[in-house]
C-alpha cells in the first residue's frame, strides 16, 4: 500500500530537526537550506507548518519536464528527479503550484522530496509526531477534513456551526432477540 507523509502543523514546535535530517540524508551535511522539507513560521500566531512535496498523482513537475528527468518511483509513488538527466532548465520549478520543486545553483539541478526511497528521515527525526509516514488514504482524508473545517468564508458570511438537527434513529431488530 502506498504511504505518504502526513503533516500535522498543530503538533510542530519548529525545532527544525526534520530539515537537519533531510539535508544530512540527501547531501551529507547538516544544512537546513538544502532541506527538501521546510518548516514555515507564523510567529505572530505562534504556529509552525512543515511542508513538502505532496507527490501528486498527475504531477505538474513531471509533465512539464522537457527531458523526462522527473519520473514516477513505482515502489513509493514519489516523483523522483534523475539528476544525471536534469539539465537545470527550471521549468518544473514554475510548473509546481505548491512551490516544492526548487533549483539549486551550486549543483545546477532541481531538487524535490523523494520520500528517501520509502524511508523518510524527516518523519523519523520528528520528535512530536508532526510528520508521520502513513497510509496515503488516511493522510488524504484527514487533510481534507481539516481543511474543510477552516475553509475561508466570503466576507461578512457567518460561520456555519453545526445546528441542532433531528436525529433519525432506525430501530434495527436484534438478531436472535427475545
Amino acid at each position, binding site marked *: 500500500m502506498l504511504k505518504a507523509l502526513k503533516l500535522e502543523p498543530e503538533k510542530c514546535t519548529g525545532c527544525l530537526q526534520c530539515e537537519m535530517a533531510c539535508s544530512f540524508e540527501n547531501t551529507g551535511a547538516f544544512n537546513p537550506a538544502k532541506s527538501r522539507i521546510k518548516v514555515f513560521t*507564523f510567529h505572530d500566531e505562534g504556529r509552525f*507548518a512543515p511542508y513538502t512535496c505532496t507527490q501528486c498523482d498527475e504531477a505538474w513537475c513531471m509533465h512539464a519536464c*522537457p527531458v523526462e528527468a522527473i519520473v514516477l518511483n513505482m515502489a513509493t509513488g514519489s516523483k523522483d528527479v534523475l539528476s544525471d538527466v536534469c539539465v537545470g532548465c527550471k521549468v518544473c*520549478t*514554475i*510548473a509546481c503550484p505548491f*512551490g516544492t520543486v526548487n533549483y*539549486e545553483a551550486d549543483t545546477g539541478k532541481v531538487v524535490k522530496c523523494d520520500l528517501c526511497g520509502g524511508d523518510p528521515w524527516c518523519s523519523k527525526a520528528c520528535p512530536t509526531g508532526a510528520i508521520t509516514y502513513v497510509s496515503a488514504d488516511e493522510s488524504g482524508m484527514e487533510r481534507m477534513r*481539516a481543511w474543510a473545517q477552516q475553509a475561508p468564508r466570503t466576507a461578512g458570511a457567518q460561520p456555519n456551526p453545526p445546528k441542532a438537527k433531528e436525529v433519525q434513529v432506525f430501530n434495527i431488530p436484534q438478531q436472535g432477540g427475545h
Partner: protein
Amino acid sequence: MRHVIIGAGPAGVVAAETLRKLDPDGSVTMLSSEPEPPYSRMAIPYYLVEQVGEEGTWLRKGDGYFESNGITVRSGARVSNVDTEAKQLGLEGGDTIPYDKLLIATGSQPVIPPLPGVDREGVHTCWTLEDSRHIIKRATEGARVVLIGAGFIGCIILESLVNRKTRLTVIEQQNRMVPRMMDDRAGGLIKRWCQDKGVTVHTSTTVKSVDEGSDGHPLAVSMDNGESVNADLVIVCVGVKANTQFLDGSGVKTDEGILVDRYLQTSVPDVYAAGDVAQGLDFNTGEYTVQAIQPTAADHGRLAANNMAGYKLKHQGSVNMNVLDTLGLISTSFGLWMGVEGGDSAELYDGDRFRYINLQFQGDVLVGGSSLGMTEHVGVMRGLIQSKVRLGHWKDKLKNDPTRIMEAYIACTQAIGHNARVLTA
C-alpha cells in the same frame, strides 16, 4: 481510429502518449519535419555548452521508446497540405496519410527580420538542433558573436555563448532585456548583470544591416546609433511565429496561431491543435492567445488527446509563465505580471543584490507576479494565481513582505489554524 499528429515537440509527444493510453486499439502516427528523434528545444542551451549530448535533448530517452509503445514516428516528413474533406495529409514528396482525428502541433519557427545582409553566411537562428550544430562550430573561444534580440530565447542562450568564452554583444530594440517577460526594473537589472559579466548590451537600439566585416572577421553588424561591430557569428532571436503555412486552403482558421475552442478543436471537426501553434485560452485574461511555453504545450497535448479519444475535457485556460536563467541570474514571471487596471501591487527591490519580487493583486487574489534572484518556492505564485485563493489579511502581510508567498499559500490553503485541532481532539 487513426490518430495522426503533425509535430513531435512536447505537445505532440504528450498527446501521442495520452492517446496510446486512452485508445489502445487505435493507431497513433507522429510526423516530424526534422530528421532527429523527438527532442526538446528547452534543452538546447545545455547542448550548446556541451553539458549534454544530443541524446540529452531527446524528449524520451529509452531505445525504441516510441516503437515499443505503439507510436509510429516518421522523421523528416514535412506536410505540404491538409485536405480536411477527404481527411488526408499530403507530404512533400507526394505521399498521402489518411486520418480520422488530426492534431496539429507544428509549433513555431523563428522570425527572420527583413534586414539587408541577413542571408549572409554565418548568420543563424537558434531554434533547432541543426542550428545549434552550426553555432557550436562558430562560437569558439574568443570569437566575436552578435546576438540580435534579447527576448526570452536570446537571453537563455546568452549564458551558453558566454560559457563558450565568446566576445558577446547583445542588441535589443526595446528599452530593456526580456521586455515581454519582465518589467523595466527587472529588465534593467538583467542588463546591468550581463554588463558586469563582460557582455556588451545595447538596448533601445535597432540593427540596420549585416555587412561584410573587417580585421579578419567575416561579418559586421550596423546599428542605428551609428556604431558597427565586427562578428564571426550573428544569431538572430527576434521572436517566433506559428507554423501554419501548410494549412492554406484547408479551412482551418488561423489568426496569430490556429484558432481553437475550449476542447482544443479547430474550426474544422476532428482537427485539433496544441502547443505553440495553438491560440488557446489564457487563464488570466480569458482571451485566446499564443503562449508558446513548455507547460502550456504539455497541457494542450494532454487535453487535445483526451478530446480526440472521445473523453471530453474542457480547457480551463493556461497560466502564462516563464523562468529564465541569464548568466546565473534567475528570473520568473507569472500570469498578469504587468498588473491590472484598478489592481494593487506589492514590491521589494534590492538592486545592489539583484533581488526583486513584484506581486499583482485584483482584490485579495493574486493575479500575477515576477521575481529576480529567487529560486525558492517560486512555483507557489502559479498556485496562488491558478487556485484564485482569497488571501484575506494575508494580502496586507504580503504588501509588507512579498517574499512570504509560501507562508501566504500555506496559511490560506492548509489546515494550520485553530480548526486543525479537530484532528487531534
